[in-house]
C-alpha cells in the first residue's frame, strides 16, 4: 500500500502547478515551460483547441438556424440567457455549474473552459502608469502598491512583443507607450472629436485603443501559427487566424510545443494543500468534474490564476490548522477590498455632417480617451477618474416600404444614415473593506465546494464619478457640434465583473 501511494504521489508530481488556463495562467505556463520546468495546468472547464473548437468561426449569417438568436428552450438554466447568441452560446456557463449567493446585487462573468475569458475579451490593452500605481498612496486609500512602473515596464515589453499589440505611439505621461504594430485608424467622426478636445481642453486625448491584434505579424507570431487580422470583427467566436491574442492561440500551444506542459481539463481545484512541517504548500486537491473523485497533485511552486473571485475562493477554502481562515490569511483580509470598474455611464449623440464620407471595413478596436480627471493633481470632489471608450460610425438602412419589385429595390438599395457616436465610461472604484466576498457556511456546489457569497456595493465616490462623466460627455459632445446628445446612468449592479 505504502509503495502504491508513493508511486501515485510521484505520478502526480510536477515542478509547477498553475491553477487556471486563462489569460494569466497561460502566461505562467509559457514562462515555466520555456525554462524546461514540468508544468501542470489545472482547468475546471472543458478543452478548447485553437480553431478546431471554434464551431461558428467561419459560419455565414444564413448558416445559423435561428439567425443568431437562441431558442427559449436552449436558454433554460442560463441566467445570462438574455445576452446569449447562437454564435457564442458554446461559451455560456450553465447556472448549476457553480451557484453563488448575491447578498447584494452583483454581476459576475465567467468563462469556464480552456483559455478562460481570453476567448471572450474585447482585447483592449492599455498600460498602467505611475499615476495609477501611486494612486492609493497619494489619495490615501487601500495600501501603497509595492511596485512602480519601472518594475513592470520590461515585462510589459516582454508580453507585448509576444502577444502582438496594435496601436500608436501616443506619447502620453498617463498612458505609457506600448511596443506597437500599426494601429487601427480612427474614423472621421472620431478624428473630429479628437481635434475638438485637443483644441478645447489640451489634456483630453482621443486615441486608438491599443489592442492585442496582429496587424503586422513578426517571426515570433508566425512561430505561434498566428496571422494578420482581417478586421472581420467576429473575434468573440474564436479567430481561425489566431489574429488576436488568447491563451488558446498563443501561450498554451507554445507551452505545449516544449513537451513540458500537461494540461488537465475538467479539474476543479478545491484547495491548496499546506504542510505545516515544511512551512509551505505542497500541492492542490482537485475534484475531477467527471468522476467527482478528489485527486491530489503535488509541486514545488503553485501559481493561482483562476481569475479574481475564484482565486480568492480557493485560498479561503484552503484551511489548515496553521491557516484556519484560509491560506495566507493571518490578518483576516483575504476576500476584502474587492473593487471593479464602473461602467454605469454612457453617452450617445448623432452628427449631421460628413455626408460625403463613410466607413469601409470594421475596426476591432475602438477610440479611447485615457483618464483626464485627477491625473496630475486632485481637482474634483471625488477620488480618481475614468477612461472613456468611444465608437463612432455611420449605419446603413433599407426602406421597408412597397411590395413586389419596389420592395425588392428598396431592400437591395441600402442608404447611408447619419453618423452616430457612443461613449462608455470605465471608472476606477476605490476598494473598501466592506466590499468583500466570503464562503457560505453551509451551502455548497455540486462538487462539495462552499458557495461564494458576494457582498459588494457602489460608494458615494462612484455615484459622483458617474455624474461627472455625464456632465463632461455632454460638454465635450456639445463642443464637437454633435446633436441629440443623451447621457445615461444605467444604475446597474456592481461588477459586470469581467476581470
Amino acid at each position, binding site marked *: 500500500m505504502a509503495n502504491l501511494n508513493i508511486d501515485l504521489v510521484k505520478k502526480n508530481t510536477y515542478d509547477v502547478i498553475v491553477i487556471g488556463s486563462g489569460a*494569466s*495562467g497561460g*502566461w*505562467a505556463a509559457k*514562462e*515555466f515551460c520555456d525554462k524546461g520546468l514540468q508544468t501542470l495546468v489545472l482547468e475546471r472547464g472543458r478543452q478548447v483547441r485553437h480553431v478546431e473548437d471554434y464551431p461558428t468561426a467561419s459560419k455565414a449569417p444564413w448558416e445559423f438556424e435561428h439567425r443568431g438568436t437562441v431558442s427559449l428552450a436552449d436558454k433554460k438554466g442560463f441566467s445570462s440567457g438574455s445576452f446569449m447568441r447562437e454564435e457564442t452560446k458554446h461559451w455560456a456557463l450553465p447556472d448549476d455549474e457553480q451557484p453563488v449567493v448575491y447578498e447584494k446585487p452583483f454581476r459576475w462573468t465567467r468563462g469556464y473552459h480552456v483559455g478562460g475569458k*481570453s476567448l471572450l*475579451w474585447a482585447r*483592449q*490593452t*492599455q*498600460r498602467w502608469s505611475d499615476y495609477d500605481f501611486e*494612486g*492609493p498612496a497619494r489619495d490615501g486609500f*487601500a*495600501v*501603497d*502598491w*509595492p*511596485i512602480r512602473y519601472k*518594475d*513592470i515596464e520590461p*515585462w*510589459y515589453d*516582454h*508580453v*507585448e512583443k509576444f*502577444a502582438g499589440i496594435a496601436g500608436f505611439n501616443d506619447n502620453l505621461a498617463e498612458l505609457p507607450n506600448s511596443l506597437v504594430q500599426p494601429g487601427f485608424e480612427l474614423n472621421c467622426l472620431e478624428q473630429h472629436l479628437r481635434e475638438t478636445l485637443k483644441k478645447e481642453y489640451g489634456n483630453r486625448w482621443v486615441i486608438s485603443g491599443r489592442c492585442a491584434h496582429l496587424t503586422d505579424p513578426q517571426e515570433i507570431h508566425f512561430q505561434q501559427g498566428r496571422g494578420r487580422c482581417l478586421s472581420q470583427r467576429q473575434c468573440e467566436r474564436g479567430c481561425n487566424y489566431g489574429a488576436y491574442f488568447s491563451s488558446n492561440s498563443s501561450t498554451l500551444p507554445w507551452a505545449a510545443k516544449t513537451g513540458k506542459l500537461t494540461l488537465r481539463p475538467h479539474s476543479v481545484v478545491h484547495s*491548496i494543500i499546506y504542510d505545516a512541517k515544511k512551512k*509551505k*504548500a505542497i500541492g492542490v486537491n482537485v475534484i475531477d468534474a467527471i468522476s467527482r473523485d478528489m485527486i491530489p497533485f503535488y509541486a*514545488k511552486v*503553485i*501559481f*493561482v*490564476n*483562476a*481569475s*479574481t*473571485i475564484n*482565486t*480568492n475562493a480557493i485560498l479561503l477554502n484552503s484551511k489548515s490548522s496553521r491557516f484556519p481562515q484560509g491560506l*495566507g*490569511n*493571518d490578518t483576516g*483580509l*483575504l476576500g*476584502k*477590498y*474587492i*473593487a471593479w470598474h464602473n461602467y454605469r455611464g454612457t453617452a450617445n449623440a448623432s452628427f449631421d455632417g460628413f455626408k460625403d464620407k463613410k466607413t469601409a471595413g470594421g475596426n476591432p478596436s475602438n477610440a479611447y480617451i485615457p*483618464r483626464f480627471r485627477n491625473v496630475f493633481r486632485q481637482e474634483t470632489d471625488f477620488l480618481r*477618474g475614468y477612461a472613456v471608450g468611444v465608437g463612432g460610425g455611420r449605419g446603413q438602412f433599407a426602406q421597408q416600404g412597397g411590395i413586389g419589385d419596389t420592395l425588392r429595390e428598396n431592400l437591395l438599395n441600402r442608404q447611408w444614415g447619419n453618423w452616430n457616436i457612443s461613449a462608455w465610461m*470605465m471608472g*476606477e*472604484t476605490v*476598494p473598501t473593506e466592506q466590499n*468583500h*466576498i466570503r464562503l457560505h457556511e453551509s451551502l455548497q456546489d455540486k462538487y462539495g465546494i462552499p458557495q461564494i457569497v458576494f457582498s459588494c456595493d457602489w460608494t458615494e465616490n462612484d455615484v459622483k464619478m458617474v455624474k461627472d462623466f455625464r456632465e463632461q460627455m455632454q460638454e465635450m459632445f456639445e463642443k464637437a457640434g454633435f446633436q441629440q446628445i443623451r447621457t445615461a446612468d444605467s444604475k446597474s449592479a456592481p461588477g459586470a465583473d469581467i*476581470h
Partner: protein
Amino acid sequence: MGGVRMGKNPSTSLLNEWNQLHACKNVFVTDGACMTSTGTQNPTLTFMALTARAANHAMDEWKKLNL
C-alpha cells in the same frame, strides 16, 4: 479585482512585491486578485506582465533554493 492584494506590509496585505503570499512563499497569485487598486485601464495586460515577472522571479529563487 483585489481580495488578495499586494503590499509592502504583511499585516495589511497578502502578497509581496513578487506576488508571493507573505505567509506561504511558494504560492503566487498573479491574476486580478492581486490588484491593490483598479486603475481605469483594461487590466489584463497588467495581469499578464505581473505573471511573467513573478514566474521568472520564482525560477530565480528556485535556483537559489529559496522555494
